């Protein structure tokens, strides 16, 4: 029972890592860039959502209407999609065709820049996202008494959103003409442009979709955690990036799978690390290492399967 609850906890955080990891994996798939500023894009999504909700319902509002919450979060996520495109236009597009290293360093620079920008606008203190009454606390389903497993509107809404967005992405990428162009660009951008595919449009769409999902992921992570600040993108981004690598960078289902694996492993670590006896410390291994366990799993899997779980070996691009 407890095991099931840990697993469920892990699944809940894992799909959020997955949603954010999609942004890394899609951008990497198209332009072979590790967009280190993606975590900050997610952070901006959460910040803008919090700001919109603050404007609309007052900073001290305890509970807000559900419709308003959805509308403003969507609005913020759309805006964040725009930030993603802007980030590409300002920082990465001028470097297209130059070495991967310079683009990577620019990405790290943008990450720091966006963090500092966020401090200037929103300050360095902790922030919260207002949610509708009972959204995260009222149990829709309670298994095993008051202290048993509790499933709330929040959980159901992130599951539904994840299923919907994964299906939507599958449809976009596999079934539409534009998705075909995206896949073609990922494989061979020169040949794709010779077919009349506009690289800029594909890249912009990629940034938009990744940032939109990242914003929703960022908001959900902030709600799940309880509060957030300008640094939330840093750690979440790192975990999501690890998830993308674990699942096979470039693969969208891989990103989700990687996110879920890391989330579940972390949750198990939180639950069971202290059961493992420590030679020196009474009370077993510290649960403070739960995040480290997720990365250990990453390293082990990458050692065995360097291309990641669902990644393809090598590439057709020299």
């Amino acid at each position: 029972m407890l095991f099931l609850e840990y697993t469920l906890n892990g699944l809940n955080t894992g799909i959020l890592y997955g949603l954010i990891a999609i942004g890394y994996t899609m951008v990497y798939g198209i332009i072979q860039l590790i967009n280190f500023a993606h975590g900050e894009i997610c952070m901006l999504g959460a910040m803008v959502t919090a700001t919109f909700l603050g404007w609309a319902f007052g900073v001290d509002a305890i509970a807000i209407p559900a419709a308003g919450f959805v509308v403003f979060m969507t609005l913020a996520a759309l805006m964040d999609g725009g930030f993603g495109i802007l980030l590409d236009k300002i920082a990465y597009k001028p470097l297209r065709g130059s070495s991967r290293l310079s683009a990577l360093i620019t990405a790290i620079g943008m990450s720091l820049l966006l963090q500092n920008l966020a401090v200037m606008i929103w300050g360095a203190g902790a922030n919260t996202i207002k949610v509708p009454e009972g959204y995260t606390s009222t149990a829709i389903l309670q298994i095993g008494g008051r202290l048993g497993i509790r499933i709330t509107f929040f959980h159901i809404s992130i599951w539904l959103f994840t299923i919907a967005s994964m299906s939507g992405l599958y449809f976009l990428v596999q079934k539409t003409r534009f998705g075909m162009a995206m896949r073609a660009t990922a494989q061979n951008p020169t040949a794709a442009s010779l077919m009349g595919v506009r690289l800029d449009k594909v890249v912009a769409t990629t940034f938009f979709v990744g940032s939109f999902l990242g914003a929703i992921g960022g908001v959900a992570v902030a709600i799940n955690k309880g509060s957030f600040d300008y640094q939330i993108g840093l750690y979440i981004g790192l975990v999501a990036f690890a998830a993308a690598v674990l699942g096979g960078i470039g693969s969208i289902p891989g990103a989700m799978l990687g996110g879920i694996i890391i989330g579940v492993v972390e949750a198990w670590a939180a639950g069971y690390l202290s059961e493992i006896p420590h030679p020196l410390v009474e009370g077993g291994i510290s649960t403070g290492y739960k995040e480290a366990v997720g990365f250990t799993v990453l390293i082990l899997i990458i050692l065995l399967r360097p291309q990641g779980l669902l990644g393809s070996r090598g590439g057709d691009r020299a």
Partner: protein
Amino acid sequence: MIRSRIAPLVLCAVALLTTGCPPADGGKTDDGDYSIIVGGDGVFSPDYVKLAEGAAEGSYIITPYINDTSSPGIKAFSEAFIAEYKQEPDAWAALTYDAVGTIAVAIEKAGKPDRKGIRDALAAMNSKETGYPGVTGVTFFDKNGDCAKPALIAEVKGGKLTKSATQIDTSSAGEAKAGGDKAAKKAEGEPIVIGVAGPFTGGGQKYGEMIKAGAKLKLAELNAAGGVLGRPLKIVWGDDESTNSKAVNVANDFAARPELCAVVGHFNSTCSLAAKAIYKAAEIPALTPGSTNVKVCEGSDWYFRNLYRDDFQGFICSDFITKSLKKKTCVVFFDDDDYGTGLKTFFEQRAKETGLEVLESISYDKKSVTEFTSLVTKAKSKAPEVIFIAGNYKEAALIAKACKKAGLTK
């Protein structure tokens, strides 16, 4: 992919079918009472209440100071503070206010802004009579540089930090009158410079904000009353962001300023421990208004504090749970840093002596923890009567929120 989606789908369907099932609430259930949150003094901050958004209600927090305006000394300070900053002072604002005052007195006693002279003057404040009477009680030091001050219990009530009806120790705070009644002279000449270090940004920003406010208020009062030794007092700020490495940078920067004669800070124990060797080597006296780890003043004649230590705090926390709340079981959440582990160790030591059963001690790393759900699930599985938190207000607020979501607390 597909398979992993089926499970939640089934659960969703089940959930939608059973929406009629009532949310579990209403005090007592089969699982016994709701748990009570007790926090160490790191939790004492208005932002704990704010960030926890209602989940903090009913928590008890140990603190060296409560803004209890029924005491006349505190009233004047509180009114001046609220007039300036539009919010109530917390313990850290009050302790910093007193620390700046203590340093000012030490400078007066030394007769000149000389590092060695100030240290000697501080060391000479070794009894209640020779100590500094401030809003947090009388500050005086033992030969270690430690300070004996009482601990109070605050309760979150109606979204505010109030003095709890249940106290464990009588307080002498606020007995003394704050500030001097010296005739206002104009402070003239070269300013006397002291450093104030704290977490002005980063995860402990609210502490920093309060520290800055308390120091500035005292500074303004001192300078309006003729300054120190007839010269204006000036503060340079050092932001340690609650991290060891930044604390070392700040200490080195302070040490490199020859005009700087004393430091108020650092706040976090882990920062104090990292910086104290630098102050010792540079022979700068430092007075911390917040570090409670037992080792902070150990081995240095130059480091002082104006509040109790964690051995005392841990003792009080444990006794509060067993004697005042009359509870027998608890789960401890502790921050993996010097403050959290230190406080937890002394708490557990006292718990063992008094028969308080610590069901589980759960550590977390505040730099990387993404959420507390699974850690709280672990706590929940032990069904404790009390949840004791040895950490900072920000993570404490997240734990309180997660406990409420999990149905552990009301």
